[in-house]
């Protein structure tokens, strides 16, 4: 199968007063039709800039795509003219954002806003466009769409607004939906509804989803493939099962350990020391080395000439010199798993190949409400 979207060695820079910063460095990833790729990382890791670059929505200047390709069905989006790009945006690739209130226009009804997109891309009459809008509101589970199409964004709750955003994004039947933290601003019970809705719509339409999130629970439940980003780079990418079973990169490992889990009685949480590096002053070599537990552990038993002492977050630590001097590239550690760390046992013999994770998850997360009610009621009712 050929990927729907293939990002190859994307590099993005921003020119700021204090010099150039590089929010995306050498990023490669791919998404297949019907697949959900989760892009995971903390603030400033480059995940949102990567997504915005796909739609060419980064402001230029100060932003600039320095190099690389974004192949969508074989066409390089980086090379498209702006008019051609406008036909892709919204029509073939749509995006939803974290905060639905700021991405909806408060002075237009939600109907007007959906209709605008539909008319622009589908060349239909207003009447037909309103029908399409009503249908898409219905698809996202908004009851009484005939009445609610005339409501303004402020009349709706956060969960409803996010449904409207999804309806708007899907009204033109895009092949790829980019969802940038779609549930971060929502309550857990509403988050569960929205994620279930996205899964249902994906099953029905076969669209691919690029799900940007920092929540590992959301990743585990929704993703087929995962790309973990740290300091503007992809540091690990694999199928969701492999990533959770055998994380290879020490950052992925550390993230999994530092999240408290339900029904787990750890007295203390394992932490990743230090803080997320600022793109304006990245450390040298492997960008994770000042926070890395693996290099510290290995340095403790390594010969002195292979280690370096450095100051990190007020403490003196000893790490392997290779990690300080040389930035590791993403290599294929085993089939369908790529990672960038010098200290993975098979790293030196592994090859640099483009990360292509063609995979659908084994366990589908299907939740029929009635079945759940039974489950809940079992043993609980009087």
């Amino acid at each position, binding site marked *: 199968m050929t990927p729907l979207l293939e990002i190859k060695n994307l590099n993005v820079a921003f020119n700021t007063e204090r010099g150039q910063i590089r929010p995306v460095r050498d990023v490669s990833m791919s998404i297949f039709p019907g697949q959900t790729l989760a892009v995971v990382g903390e603030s400033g890791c480059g995940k949102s800039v990567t997504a915005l670059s796909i739609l060419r929505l980064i402001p230029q200047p100060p932003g600039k795509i320095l190099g690389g390709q974004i192949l969508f069905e074989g066409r390089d989006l980086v090379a498209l003219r702006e008019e051609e790009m406008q036909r892709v945006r919204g029509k073939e690739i749509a995006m939803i954002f974290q905060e639905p209130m700021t991405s909806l226009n408060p002075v237009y009804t939600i109907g007007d806003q959906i209709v605008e997109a539909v008319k622009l891309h589908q060349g239909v009459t207003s009447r037909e466009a309103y029908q399409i809008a009503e249908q898409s509101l219905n698809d996202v589970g908004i009851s009484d769409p005939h009445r609610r199409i005339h409501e303004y964004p402020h009349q709706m709750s956060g969960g409803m607004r996010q449904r409207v955003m999804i309806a708007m994004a899907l009204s033109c039947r895009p092949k790829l939906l980019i969802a940038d933290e779609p549930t971060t601003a929502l309550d857990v019970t509403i988050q*569960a509804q929205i994620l279930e809705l996205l899964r249902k719509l994906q099953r029905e339409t076969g669209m691919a989803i690029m799900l940007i999130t920092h929540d590992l629970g959301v990743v*585990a*439940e929704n993703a087929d493939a995962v790309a973990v980003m740290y300091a503007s780079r992809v540091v690990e990418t694999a199928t*969701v099962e492999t990533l959770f079973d055998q994380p290879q990169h020490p950052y992925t490992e550390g993230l999994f350990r530092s999240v408290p889990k339900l029904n787990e009685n750890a007295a*203390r949480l394992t932490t990743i020391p230090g803080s997320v590096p600022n793109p304006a002053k990245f450390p040298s070599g492997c960008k994770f080395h000042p926070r890395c537990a693996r290099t510290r552990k290995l340095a403790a038993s390594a010969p002195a000439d292979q280690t370096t002492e450095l100051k990190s977050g007020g403490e003196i630590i000893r790490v392997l010199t290779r990690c300080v001097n040389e930035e590791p590239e993403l290599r294929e550690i085993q089939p369908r798993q790529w990672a960038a760390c010098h200290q993975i046992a098979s790293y030196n013999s592994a090859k640099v190949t483009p990360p292509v994770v063609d995979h659908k998850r084994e366990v589908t997360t299907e939740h029929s409400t009635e079945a759940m009610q039974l489950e809940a*009621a079992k043993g609980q009712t009087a």
Partner: protein
Amino acid sequence: MSAFEPVTKSPPATETIIDVRDLRTYFPIRKGIFSHTVGYVKAVDGVTFSVDRGKTLGLVGESGCGKTTVGRTILRLIPATSGEVLYRGKSFFGYHGEELRKLRRHMQIIFQDPMSSLNPRMTIGNIIGEPMQVHGIAKGRERDERVAQLLQRVGLDPSYALRYPHEFSGGQRQRIGIARALSLSPDFIVCDEPVSALDVSIQSQILNLLQDLQQEFQISYLFIAHNLAVVEHFSDEVAVMYLGRIVEKAASRELYSNPKHPYTMALLSAVPEPDPRPKHKRIVLQGEVPSPSNPPSGCPFHPRCPLTREAAKQASDTDTVVLAPKGSMATNGHPLPVLGNEKPDRVLRKCVEQMPPLEQKQGEPGHIAACWVTK
């Protein structure tokens, strides 16, 4: 480290620090040019709990359930409508003026957003040192020394005292907020979503710090959060709030392993597990949290409750009612508060007509829940 000594030298083993009794906070809804009151938003509607020395009570619920208002009402940042808060046996609401100010040093708060809760025009040293000066605990060189000690204790370099908040990352700012709360050696700290604005890898650092400080200084926490995994990890006891009321309260582990309120069950199952092969199934609740200005009758959870629907299948017709479909209007033209579903929606009559009491359920002593259906 004299600055951090607890106020009492030898506190009894289980001293109750904060005792909240039937607390209510109503916000008036005003309309018209004379802004007369047409109703109330019952943000907090009869909340009772207590926190012992060195213990943590977790308060969870969705946005708008009143958890933040509870924390602020206790500290008198928002006036209470009725009810009482006892601080070490004395009624905190009875104090005014100078006496109130003196008591306030024992109760502090840590806010969610560490950016908006630090004055951008003050140095870190002044932010942490000012409370000590105001309360006459330390000034001059002594004050600066204590600021340095506090910074060190929360894992920051003492030289940061001369810098400004914008120079710090989110996690560091939250540490500064914690140092400020600690500067008056309080007995009780309200932690209002202290980690939800932080990056995942930083959250665990802050949680560990709060836990260490609790053990060291025997501080009691009211830990307000919406992340259930974080609350379970952090709290001794957990209370779940829905529409201004506590619907369930139990020891942390008991609540998570043996939930007795359907809302707690749904909340627990809605948390996505960081495991691609989840062990248990999910209850997806229908609908959304109703408005607290117009709460549903009887048990406020009945429009979304899966348990009453299940129980209604086995009950006789006289014991059940069919809810009006969603969006239907009452005779006066206002939407009905009942947000049922499109399908015929049968629930227990009791759940619609009577508010269930918060009572002891099967399980550990002290496990209370408000539900007509569960035992």
